[in-house]
């Protein structure tokens, strides 16, 4: 219930935040804190310094258009994603999925940047952003760079972020959404997804991303290719997904059941996305 001791540093601006992450001993970024603080409280993890990013919300929260792209600040909270008019209009998949995360209270602290940087295998947003081909803008002490979401996600709670790097925004291309679906399977409403499938259809094709069937969210590449080639893959869906996924057994489900759920939810997502 009580973490080991740490120092707390309130970030005054983005430069100061990345500077602190680079130099303070054992520094860790605190965004919404709803993954990090419970882990600290259970003493499964520790920190030397928590660099609180919340004061940067003025700078790093909010949704705007930039040319054809929709740009979402890293500290934009789930509750804001749910209701933001630009997000609900252009990225309805993201708005809908954001409402499924955690619970009412969690969604008032948790945010898109925190979710992507934490990169839990069962997290909702990595898969959603993967399906939407989000690009991640990252600020380090010396440089700002942009990664694809695919480049960002490495493994369960592993990303390509360097220790001094922070996600500052997520950029989404405007593909013109023709249909979408988020299929999320849980035991209880407030649980992390046992398996989830994000699907979005546009003129450019159909994108399908799978959550919690591998160490990180994955795109169903073979399936997307088959769809692009005009095939109707109902029968061999499991085979088409098979290469992309590598699920594990845990308290919520076996690997076999997850494989099955992935196929069922994908089929449903494709139907719902039209």
């Amino acid at each position, binding site marked *: 219930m009580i973490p080991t001791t740490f120092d707390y540093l309130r970030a005054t601006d983005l430069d100061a935040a990345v500077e602190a992450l680079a130099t303070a001993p054992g520094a860790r970024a605190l965004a919404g804190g709803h993954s990090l603080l419970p882990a600290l409280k259970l*003493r499964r993890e520790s920190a030397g310094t928590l660099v609180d990013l919340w004061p940067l919300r003025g700078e790093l929260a909010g949704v705007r258009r930039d040319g054809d792209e929709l740009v979402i600040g890293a500290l934009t909270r789930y509750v804001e994603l749910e209701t933001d008019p630009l997000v609900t209009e252009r990225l309805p998949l993201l708005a809908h999925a954001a409402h499924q995360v955690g619970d009412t209270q969690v969604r008032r602290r948790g945010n898109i940047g925190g979710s992507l940087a934490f990169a839990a295998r069962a997290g909702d947003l990595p898969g959603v952003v993967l399906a939407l081909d989000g690009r991640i803008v990252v600020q380090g002490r010396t440089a700002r760079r942009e990664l694809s979401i695919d480049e960002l996600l490495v493994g369960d709670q592993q990303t390509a972020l360097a220790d001094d790097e922070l996600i500052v925004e997520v950029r989404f291309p405007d593909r013109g959404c023709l249909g979408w679906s988020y299929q999320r399977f849980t035991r209880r409403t407030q*649980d992390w997804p046992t398996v989830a499938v994000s699907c979005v259809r546009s003129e450019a094709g159909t994108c399908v991303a799978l959550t919690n069937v591998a160490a990180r969210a994955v795109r169903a590449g073979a399936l997307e290719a088959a769809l692009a080639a005009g095939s109707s893959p109902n029968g061999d869906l499991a085979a088409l997904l098979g290469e992309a996924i590598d699920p594990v057994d845990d308290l919520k489900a076996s690997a076999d059941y997850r494989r099955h759920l992935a196929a069922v939810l994908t089929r449903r997502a494709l139907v719902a996305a039209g």
Partner: protein
Amino acid sequence: MGLIGSPVVRKEDHRLITGQGTFTDDLVGPGTAVMRYVLSPHPHARVTAIDPAPALALDGVIAVHTVEDFGDYPDLPGPEPAARPVLARDRVRFHGEPVAVVLARSASIAADAIEAVEVTYEPLPAVPTLAEALAPDAVQLHELLPGNRLMDVPVDGDIEEALAAAPHRAELHLVNNRCAPTAIEPMTVLADWTGARLELHASFQAPHHLRNYLTEWLGIPQSHCRIVAPDVGGGFGSKIQWYPELFIAPLLSRWHGVAVRSVLTRSEALKLMYHGRAQEQDIEVGFDDEGRIHALKMLVTQDLGGYADVTGAGLPVLTTWMAAGCYRIPHVATGFRHVFTTTSPVSSYRGAGRPEATYAIERTIDLVADLTGVDAAEVRMRNFIPPDAFPFAQNTHEAVVYDSGDFPAALTKLLELMDYDTLKAEQAERREDPDAPLLGIGFSTWLEIAGFGPNGSLEGFGHLASWESVNLRILPDGTALVTSGTSPHGQGHQTMLAQIASDVLGIEVEAITVRHGDTDTVQQGTGTFGSRSVSTAGVGLHRAATAVAERARRIAAHLLEADPDAIVLSDGRFHRQADDEASVGWAEVATASFQPLQLPEGTPAGTLEEQVYQESPNFTYPSGAYGCVVEVDRDTGQVQVRSYVAVDDCGAVINPLIADGQVHGGMTQGIAQALYEHVRYDDDGHLLTETLEDYLVPTAPDIPRFVTGRADTPTPNNELGAKGIGESGAVGSPPAVVNAVIDTLSHLGVRALDMPVTPERVWTALNEAKAAR
């Protein structure tokens, strides 16, 4: 008057909804030290060394104690030779068993200190399952109890003859999944023995019971100890166990001269507060083509965990007593065995042995229905004890005599409320439509033993006696004070008891104060558990109020210069006779009762007070008919409860608002046991469900709206006619849900599914059934 049966809004609520509650940890004063345990990371190990030095070196650590420091004190109360030491002695027997205790100036320091204590373990092989513990070469947990058994009562072999004589017989192996009661307030203790007397506040369901044991354990006079159960944040049977902090915290306070507070974290509570259920059953049933049951045999295997709790040991006894449910079965034979495993100890959880019995008989009934093709409701009707058979001496045990009930009426009402015929038609349509979710209808026509209890019933569980104590006192202004030995933790006794007193006396509910949970102010008490409070304290208070009203009538007659026998008490006033305006109120009568000059000659002052130790002539047997409708997703196995209807018979209802609340809560726990909750260990005996992330307590969107109805038959065993209702929902619900899920698949030949019925289990059963075709 006429308040019994009214939905009176609770007197308790105002404090609790304004943040003025006084839960134990809300009462901590400045300077209170914090006690925390060092927990074993191993389920079974020898403790070879404990080095407290690194912890003692931390600023603010007052002390570190191990079991040797408690050498002057006995083990915790419990069945020997499997009683539990206050801290692990040489050996730990479940994951998380405390091996040392730290006392520190603050919670933060204590949290740091427990990690600094260095403990050396020599791990031993774990035996986390019944099968492993029962294996011939199993590791032994208690040297003096070979075979990892405490008691082993075999099934009487004569039943074989009856089973053989039945036209058909079938077997069933059932698992009552291990659950964590999970009161939202974890176990909390606040001990102050810095003065002459020990004052202990604790989240506990039976403060006098604790006083009796704790003072004996400490070797101090009972008069030197005050136990208070203030506001208690839920219990569900999990706050009447002899948790070591109840015994350690007072000694730490004494030894170190500070008040001591112990608050378990949730992850600690999931290991250290005793679990429930954890019982398996092997059943054989003999029946005929019409679905009539001829013979029933059941062997109950009760997992006790690493140590024997006295209530835990009693669970299978209650299960065997209730084995035949609400049915007349010509031949019944049961047996049980207690088995030790390297898991957290098992004890009472809402229902305590009766949910397990209900699960056994109600699953058996559905199996018979499936095997004979007779409708599940009709099988029940054919086997019910008829309404004219009460009192009914059940053939499971001589102590079991059912008081009253009308099981066919309850089921008939249930079928009406569910619109059963329409549901059956819809189910048939669904089965033909491969795109529609499957529909299942499940029943549980259950009956439980409650109202603990009759003399002798609680003594076996280690209580001083089985009565409940209640005192009614009229104050000089005509208001009333009730003190009750029950110790509620959400059940609304301040309101319920005030209604009973008000009903007799005509004093307004608002003018009646009910006190409980304090051994200094409440004369004696047994406690709140086993659906006992109304049929013991409630009945006792009714008698006390009746006696006090009679004495008040005599005083009123004296004041009115009237004939006592003509006095009529109505709307809180004593009238000279019916329809006579000449009257006196409670205030005048009460004032006079303390003024000898106002009293009839020979009447002493202070007679408007009555104390009752209410004994019960028999148990009560609440019953009911529950119906659950589920939809099952054919592709994923996901179960959705579509509707849930409950018809209860708890005899007389004192407050329907409170009664419905009890039923709703119990049903939610029963649904949760059936679909969500499961305490799980890995193959090596480590607890996997250590947090509420993994132990799946449901929230509002996971639970359906309930429809409730009543089919009350008052018990003849007490003048209120009340049976009790605290455990009903939890007792009756698990088989209703499981029967419904199996009903979705029964046309495919599925006959069994284990709780919790997870989507994956349903999916697996669907696959196996399809493969078998």
